[in-house]
């Protein structure tokens, strides 16, 4: 992978069974691709059952990043981990819908707390 983006690696934090990713930088495509495989590797390494991706700082999600996020959710699902996208800005949501990316099948939550509740509920449903 390219060296110049290595220093910009997005941190992934593990809390209990979950991974928390907070995207704080304006994403470009390589960074998005890198983040996707980074998260998948962390799921494998830690055995996490859920991933929260906070995008509240992102001012723009275009088709590439949108597809990366929904692809991320499907890939994690195959690895038995649920993904919740958290904190999308209203303007971003409107633009995504107009762009034609409705991200079906991707779980979303208003904030981290609600996202966490959602993941816990999902886990409980899976266990029972």
């Amino acid at each position, binding site marked *: 992978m390219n060296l110049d983006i290595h220093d910009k690696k997005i941190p992934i934090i593990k809390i209990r069974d979950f991974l928390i990713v907070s995207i704080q930088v304006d994403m470009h495509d390589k960074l998005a691709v890198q983040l996707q495989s980074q998260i998948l590797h962390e799921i494998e390494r830690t055995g996490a059952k859920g991933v929260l991706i906070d995008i509240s700082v992102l*001012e723009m999600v275009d088709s590439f990043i949108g597809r990366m996020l929904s692809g991320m959710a499907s890939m994690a699902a195959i690895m038995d981990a649920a993904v919740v996208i958290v904190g999308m800005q209203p303007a971003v949501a409107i633009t995504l819908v107009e762009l034609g990316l409705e991200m079906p099948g991707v779980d979303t939550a208003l904030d981290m707390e609600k996202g966490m509740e959602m993941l816990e509920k999902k886990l409980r449903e899976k266990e029972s």
Partner: protein
Amino acid sequence: MQEIISDKNWNKLGIYPIVDEHDIVKVRSIVRQHAKDFRMGIVEQTRITTAISELLRNMYNYANGGDVVIESGDIEEHNALIITCIDKGPGIENVELAMSDGYTSGMGMGYGLPGAKRLVDKFEIYSEPQKGTTVRIMKWK
């Protein structure tokens, strides 16, 4: 399809070359700043920034980069932000097909051009195989 030329009366705000991905990030934020200067609302700002992101990606992936010209001028009696993306890439064989929803030429696009068109007020495209593609988007408040 008509060739895209600039109007003499338009005000040139800047010209930026797109060479690598960082240029895309940079130009995106420049476009957002111009949209703010045009007093566009947050949704409008996001629309034009997203549209330009789609166009710049096409330019970077298919044509090895190109130039972006940002202008302001009167379009249909509106003071519009006019952004033109010019590349000297392989061009688009079938523009009509490329403009239809869901079409992809292999790199998993399919939203780029038609998506960008939906996000702006006016959209023009001119492409010649082997010579390159010019796309112009216009947005007003």
